[in-house]
């Protein structure tokens, strides 16, 4: 029952998110807005109910699985990808590496500069 209550709540937030996004015409996906709304709710409430925790852990523990059907969609684009595989592969690979390296370094440096070493130490205790 816990799981059922939790998943129902997640779907309700997603639904409210989807409807709000459409009503306001904002270019943000409904589930992302739903996530923000659930986060604010938990914040106001001061704790996460067990049902939501159960459902969230269950869904997130196999998050990779949920991307498989979209990944299989590759087969519908084989010819297009084959035609331009050089720019696609190089741009995708290099850009992903550059983005990851730059973001990680900016985050690490700004954490040290702005938050200081105290924050880092506290973190290592977790």
């Amino acid at each position, binding site marked *: 029952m816990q799981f059922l209550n939790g998943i129902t709540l997640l779907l309700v937030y997603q639904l409210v998110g989807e409807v709000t996004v459409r009503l306001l015409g904002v270019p943000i996906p409904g589930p992302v807005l*739903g996530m923000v709304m659930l986060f604010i709710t938990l914040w106001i409430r001061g704790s996460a109910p067990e049902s939501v925790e159960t459902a969230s852990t269950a*869904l997130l523990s196999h998050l990779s699985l949920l*991307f498989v059907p979209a990944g299989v969609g590759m087969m*519908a684009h084989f010819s297009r990808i084959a035609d331009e595989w050089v720019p696609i592969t190089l741009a995708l690979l290099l850009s992903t590496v550059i983005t990851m390296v730059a973001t990680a370094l900016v*985050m690490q440096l700004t954490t040290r500069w702005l938050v200081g070493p105290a924050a880092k130490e506290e973190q290592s205790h977790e």
Partner: protein
Amino acid sequence: MNDPGLKDIWVYLSASPLLGLTITLVAYGLAYRLYLRTNSNPLANPVVTSVAMLIGLLLLTGTSYSDYFEGGQFVHFLLGPATVALAVPLYQQFSRLRQLWMPVTLSLLCGVVIAAGSSIWLARIFGGSLEIQMSLAPKSATAPVAMGISEKIGGLPSLTAVLVVITGITGAVLGTKLFEWIRVKDDTAKGIAMGVAAHGIGTARAFQVSNQMGAFSGLAMALSAFATALLVPWLVDLFDAWIPA
């Protein structure tokens, strides 16, 4: 398949969502076992191996993607509630997040601009068509956002969905090694970088490393979805004005 009995069964199965759904779960189950067998080697990422298995199977049996997706959509649908569910680990990391909001904001903005800018620019210098450049631009954002942006700036949304998945896999596979090379040790920094560059697939990988890395990756994925939606169309205009194709 000359046996009429077998043929009837195949006609039934290929028209029903049962087959697509079942093979998705079976393939993922096998891929996940393989991943554990290799001591969680990122190269054996379960998304890569299960997608490869499924494409092989579909090509072998001559099944179209749309027939497969009849069943696959049930798994695909869960991406929505899973995105909402990210609020929970995020909330659990709230105190850490409050402490780090400045670095998080700065690195997110850098990450989003670099992700989109570098993919347009690199695709352009390596001779990609404008359609490919625009389909690649939002590749680091989560699939539904990326598809929406791609459509808006003149890319192909369905191609973008595929590029988004390949980007996620690339990030998930290379991430931990890259962070080792550049000596980034904080799980918060690794998580933010993973979420910005490799959205949900990177986040799935981050959760395998630690709950904190996963939570920050989920946060970065959600916030960069907002930032990408707002910044990328503007970035494309900037490119057109300054660096003509």
